[in-house]
């Protein structure tokens, strides 16, 4: 039985491996390649001087001439760098479009000519665009440091930390999400190219909707709700990391006492003398009893204890 399974798996793998090129060639759009317009020199001419750039572009999706959305399906290098015939004739005084010397606005206008859908559909007017960031602030098409995304740093964390060092540092706290372990990335939660949500969050329309894409059990709605939970998860949690259990922004009971000042136990000083005897300060503190702090579906769950 096991041998049969292994055999079947190998057969499927072989079929896929051998069959995909056949499928691909069957649906080949038979592109004739770019038709050069007046003033354009052609990619072949560019790489006679700019050695190695053909190899660097071939590593990327930009190189697929048979995809009509790529630069290579249009004017090649000149799709992004502008017509180069004049530059070929006078390399010293006529310069093509050089992204390192262009304003952020002009760089972005060039890239968004094509990158205007999907992930990038809301770039215009986004927080990063309006702070004068260019696509080339974070990306390098020809000399990327990362394995994916053409990033100018080896990982997203290293890249984002160039401006958001406080957030990156929080990933080192004892309570953190699995970002530094490589299981999540900054872009798992954020779409840095623009978003319909606040704080460039990727999913949903509120902070909570982003959080509940993974923590769906807390989505509710439940019979008994805890108002600040419905309002925003970050009222109590710091998603980038914290030294407190469950990434709380402050330690319980102090966090809870920021809102609960009613008579008896919420408004009591839990000091060192009570440390050994009071479960309101040791261990899980308030949530020892109020365990269903995110909301309860128990008919007697009004104090979030059931």
């Amino acid at each position: 039985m096991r041998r049969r399974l292994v055999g079947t798996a190998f057969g499927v793998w072989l079929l896929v491996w051998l069959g995909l090129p056949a499928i691909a060639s069957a649906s080949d759009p038979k592109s004739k390649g770019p038709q050069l317009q007046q003033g354009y020199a052609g990619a072949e001419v560019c790489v006679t001087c700019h050695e190695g750039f053909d190899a660097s572009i071939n590593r990327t999706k930009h190189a697929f001439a048979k995809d009509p959305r790529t630069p290579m399906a249009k004017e090649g290098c000149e799709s992004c760098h502008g017509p180069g015939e004049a530059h070929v004739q006078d390399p010293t005084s006529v310069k093509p479009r050089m992204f390192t010397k262009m304003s952020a606005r002009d760089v972005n206008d060039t890239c968004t000519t094509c990158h205007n859908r999907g992930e990038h559909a809301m770039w215009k007017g986004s927080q990063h665009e309006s702070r004068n960031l260019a696509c080339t602030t974070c990306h390098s098409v020809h000399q990327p440091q990362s394995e994916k995304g053409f990033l100018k740093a080896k990982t997203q964390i290293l890249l984002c930390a160039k401006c958001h060092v406080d957030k990156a540092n929080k990933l080192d706290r004892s309570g953190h999400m699995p970002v530094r372990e490589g299981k999540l990335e900054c872009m798992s939660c954020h779409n840095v190219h623009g978003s319909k949500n606040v704080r460039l969050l990727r999913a949903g329309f509120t902070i909570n909707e982003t959080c509940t894409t993974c923590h769906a059990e807390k989505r509710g709605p439940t019979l008994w709700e805890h108002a600040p939970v419905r309002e925003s998860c970050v009222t109590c949690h710091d998603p980038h990391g914290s030294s407190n259990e469950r990434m709380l922004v402050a330690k319980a009971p102090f966090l809870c006492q920021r809102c609960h000042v009613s008579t008896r136990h919420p408004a009591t000083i839990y000091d060192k003398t009570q440390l050994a005897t009071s479960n309101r300060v040791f261990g899980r503190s308030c949530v020892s009893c109020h365990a269903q702090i995110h909301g309860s579906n128990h008919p007697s769950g009004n104090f979030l204890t059931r």
Partner: protein
Amino acid sequence: MTRTRVVSFSSALVLTCAVTAFAQATLPKPTDGREQAISSLSGKAYGNIDFGGQFSSVTGDSARFQRYRDLRDGPLADNVLLNRRDETWTLRAAAVKPGYRDQRFTADYRLVGKVKAFFDWNQIPLFISSDTRTLYSEVSPGVFRLPDAMQASNQAGTTTIRDFVGSATQFDLRTRRDIGQFDFVYTANRDLDLKFNVTNTRRNGAIPYGASFGFSNDIELPAPIDQRTTDAKASLEWANRDALVSIGWDGSWFNNNVDAMIWDNPLKITDSPSYSSAYSDGRGPAQARMALWPDNTMQYVHGTGSFSTPARGRLTAYLAVGASKQNEALLPHTINSLIPVVPLARPTAEAEIRNTMFNVLYVARPFRPFMVNARYRYNDLDNRTPPFEMFGRVRFDGVLDDASAAEPPEFYSVKRENFDVDGTFSGLPFTSIKVGYGSAISDRTFRIFEKTNENTFRVSADSTGNRYVTLRALFENSVRTGKALDEELLIDIGEQPGMRHFDIADRDRKRFTLIATVMPISTLGFNASAAVAREDYPESEFGLRDVDSNQYSAGVDFLPSDRVGVNLTYAWERYGTLSASRTASPGDQFTDPRRNWFTDYAGKVSNIDAVVDLAAVAPKTDVRLTINWSDVKDTYTYLLAPQTTLPAPSQLAPVLNELFRGTVDVTHRLTNRLRLGASYWYEDYNTEDFALGELTLTDIALPAVQPGVPVVPTSTLLLGYIYRPFTAHTGIVRLTYLW
């Protein structure tokens, strides 16, 4: 002599700079067959695989050391990559740590210009504790039982929980997420995409959870996690250079296979009838029952339209309409057989929130150096759950309240409107100056402020694109005010009327950030940042009153050659909050300011990150060294009011968290196809935590016996989940084969 050194050093830097500048005109050409395969669309397969092993030695908390990783000793076949690309199709398949709990597999197929298909299988383990012990047995999912003899003798008073602790069994407390994701995009033509995505997340294991019988009878259990979330998305997107239109549907289904948790009372073998103090003096039920996370669904339909407008503008609008629903069967009010049945208003929750989201964004550049950007967001979370009449309730399965004492649930709704407008002037070289205003209006139900309005003014200056200097500065001033204050809501639940919930309270906030990067030469860069924020809650007599934070960092990047790279960053942060409270019983105490007290929190954080890359430090050998140090000290200090009548508090010890990680990674190229690598990781974590540390949680049965202190009856039974230090050494050896 010194002058000569300076001149020599400067000359070397200038030369290095010149070499780098020259290098920008050309890029290295592929040197061997594999590099050529990567840098061409030849259809040649290439890839790599590591064979080796990993070995760890841990002293202390081995669970926290591993946390989201699986670092068990064993052989490795890691970083498996299979890649093939030609002009018409590509395939990339990869595997990371196959066979381990944190394994991951991905496959990416593209039929150029037609189809993109992506599959990802990602396992995320969470190792919570290996210290955990319990007296309970889980006889079926979510049902925890104790030996009857223990309950009987504890009830009779002949034993206490402490007498049975020796028979607690150890178990590893962990969960794991298995996430399967499939994305498919079909490109019908140059402008039209059909997209489909399905993600299935299975989560299994257990987490520490409070399961209390009341104040003096507190239990901690490994709450079972057996959940599945399925998300599906489908959309159609048409876009060209001037316009975009998309329509789509998103659906999400959460399913929890364990609906309730039932557990025995270690102090009781028989139920007791309702008694006013049952939950605080141990005269409660023999068992309890809690509702766990209910199944729920969420669905949306949405559409986006985006169009180019005159004045180099763009208008984008987004509309989504959807609902979240939950209709789980409701449990009875109690499992206590001696408490009369309290009728339920209905058998299922019938909970529903309808959500409407509308977003309009307009960007225009009427003149080249000027951009205007306006955005309006509308989000309505309309809770449509029908009223739930209460005919009574049962607290902690021990105390019956009649209908007059049982307030019905309040189903929160919130409607938010945000309007932001920014004007950006970028007439200066490489620089833009932005001035903006934002208004955030929230309209809520069942909260002390039914409405809040926050006005924000901001100004920022960003100088980017200059190769020598980058400067970013932002100042923001926000004022939030609440309207329609309902102090009765506070008084009804015994809260101080001067208390304000800080998430909606009146607030003045000022924030300033500055980031500067200076690169005098292309091989050397300095960076520094500062962020200062102040929040005041001027109308909050009680609750959170102010928050402040100060963050500073400085770093240097030094890349003297292609072979050497050094990066060093130091960051220092300080956080502070002040909150106010009053210890008071109803009556005179309730209004006595001498019973006020305050919690003054101070958090200090230091971070050091250092990376040294040394390529070809020895023949065919690369070395990478990293150091990462994070040191956090949190102090909570109690302060008392002048002329206080409260006893002087004994201050709690600071909470300390320090993590040091140092790694060395060496790679030696044996041949063009073969590399030998070795890594060593040193990790040292130190912690002192007054609530969760070893000095406080000395046993699973608490309060513990303390020398010289009269024995307090043990009534708390925990799991032994604590914060404790670890020191770990990890070695990884690998032989990498590349083809």
